[in-house]
């Protein structure tokens, strides 16, 4: 099952290495990981998307993360109301004739063109992973020359409604 876990960590040397090393050693499968600074100086936030077998493994994952000396807080936010976003850059083949057509394809995704050359254009998209996925699928027939994704970053919404599991369901 796919889970989104966030960890607040102290920004000490080697902290990312420490955590990914622990996950590797314990055979947890990371689908994506994103790290960056937080609202507090010296504190970073990490977001992991992980695929774990069962609840016992999930519990072990959060416990092992919590055990790390630099980790301040671990949350599994999968079943909560949250905002989750990732950024993707897609360089796609485009002759000058196809350019307008591609722009038509990406417009509903509110993606933007950030670079154009003679035979390609680069599109930037931010959003939920399934939205990013959907746009990439539509662009694939044009021929994708290069693609890079940041992985998901996420946190809880300001307010938690009563029952949220359904809102997120499988799509994150």
């Amino acid at each position, binding site marked *: 099952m796919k889970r989104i876990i966030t960890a607040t960590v*102290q920004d000490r040397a*080697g902290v990312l*290495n420490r955590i990914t090393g*622990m996950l590797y050693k314990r055979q947890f499968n990371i689908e994506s990981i994103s790290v960056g600074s937080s609202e507090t100086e010296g504190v970073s936030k990490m977001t992991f998307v992980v695929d774990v077998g069962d609840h*016992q493994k999930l519990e*072990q994952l959060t416990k092992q993360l*919590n*055990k*790390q*000396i630099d980790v301040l807080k671990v949350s599994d936010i999968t079943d909560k109301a949250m905002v989750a976003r990732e950024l993707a850059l897609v360089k796609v083949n485009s002759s000058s004739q196809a350019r307008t057509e591609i722009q038509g394809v990406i417009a509903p995704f509110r993606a933007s063109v950030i670079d154009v050359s003679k035979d390609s254009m680069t599109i930037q998209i931010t959003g939920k992973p399934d939205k990013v996925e959907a746009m990439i699928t539509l662009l694939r027939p044009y021929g994708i020359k290069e693609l890079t994704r940041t992985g998901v970053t996420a946190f809880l919404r300001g307010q938690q409604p009563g029952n949220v599991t359904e809102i997120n369901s499988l799509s994150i």
Partner: protein
Amino acid sequence: MEMKRELNEANQPKNGADLFVWSLVDAGVDTLFGYPGGAVLPIYDALYRNQAPFKHILSRHEQGSIHAAEGYARTTGKPGVVLATSGPGATNLITGIADAIMDSIPLVIFTGQVAHQVIGTDAFQESDIMGITTPITKYNYQVEKLSDLPRVIKEAFYIATTGRPGPVLIDIPKNISEEISGKEFDSDFYLPGYQPTTKPNPLQIVKLADALSKSKRPIVLTGAGIQFAGASEELRQFVRKYNLPVTSTLHGLGVFPGTDEQFLGMAGMHGTYTANMAHYECDLLINIGARFDDRLTGKLEHFAPNARIAHIDIDPAEIGKVIPTEIPVVADAKEALNALIGSNISMPDHGEWIDKLQKSKEEYPLWYNRSDEAISPQWMVEQVYKASKGNAIVTTDVGQHQMWAAQFYKFDEPNRWATSGGLGTMGFGFPAAIGAQLGAPEELVVSIVGDAGFQMTLQELAVAHERNLRVKVIILNNSALGMVRQWQESFYDERYSESLLTVNPDFVKLAESYGVRGVRVEKESEVPALLEDIFAYDGPVVVDARVVQKECVYPMIAPGKGIHEMIGVKQP
């Protein structure tokens, strides 16, 4: 910076290396196990100049240093402190660090590093010790600024010795040791992410008490966590109050008296039949400070299949890791036991269970073969037990001799047993005995080792001689890697692939060449007088005890089998 001003006042700290020495004094270090080299030359110079008020023990290999520090830590309860140089010095420590993390042994390890200016250039004797040791340390540091050094050292001692103990490594680049300070630095620290829970949740204690009050077949499994918490006395009170039978892990030996009536013996692969059957048949298993190692549980589906499981551990990640746990108690063993003692539980009558276990103890004791004159290794361990009156500190490597020592030496007190359990390290026992003896100079220290493992670290005989340590090495010499040989016999149709040591040194001459007394013994009749003699002798001795090669460790849970399927169980 707060320092005990025991060092010469005129010798104010001049550079980073001086700060290192002063920080160690501040941390109360009395013994430093180490080996010099290029990157730690400034530190060794500072040890010399400051006439540091603690011992430095020069091992003959860094692995000797770290296993000695482990032996010291296991038997004194204080952290073992190690110093090695960069590169090969540091990598020679790896086995000991991995050993210490597996067995939760508190160590503070210092490694030298090449200077900051050349880190990352593959400089002479450079290795990425941070990368190498991250998975096998509780925490590790590379010192970035001189001003951090006192704080980092203080933090390291704190992390190593609190919560679940473990090894902490500090990598000190040479330029930091050389940097002139002239200042005193703050050593205060704050670790918001590291706050071990020591007090048990009262609701969980109530749950556990309730489970006990409903249990007809309770059992208490004791691990080394009780020793680390200094909770042996509380354990005794608890199990006496409610008349609970006790089993132990390999590392838990001694936290409860091995000769006590309520003790059923060690459980697990080579534990007693009674202890394993008690785990199999119990309806409540209270694990205190053990981690459900696979050598303890056997095949998981047969481990305590009908029992409610309660687990007291200071490390929350251990609870539920292997065995689903109904009653988790995250706490220091002492705190949890005190809470249970104070709970006034009304135990149901479980006399039938106790009687059954007592009967089983009589019916299925540990046993071994005797031959006419040749020495049975188990018998030899029993003789060591007798001759030492059960008071020795015993260390071992891994293998047959280790299991025989665990089976036939009865420990009545904690901190008297140092063995490599989790990692199973050959070569651990002898240097660990050196460390144990340095930590407890008045005690008799016996290192029971095999002929193969002893050859991995025997260069430390030099240290035993140099310091005239009363370490008695008993080699149970069967000219083989005994446990490997046993497994090949049992599970590989007697194909003894590379397990027979047809060429061994003359251990007596070898010991003598180091200035250590060496004795060979081949007949049982010679043993009692010999042991009496060497235990009275003021200095190190190596005994080459020629034992029966074909002897196997029994009883046994074969690999992949359940704890109720022990083989080699015999009735007298």
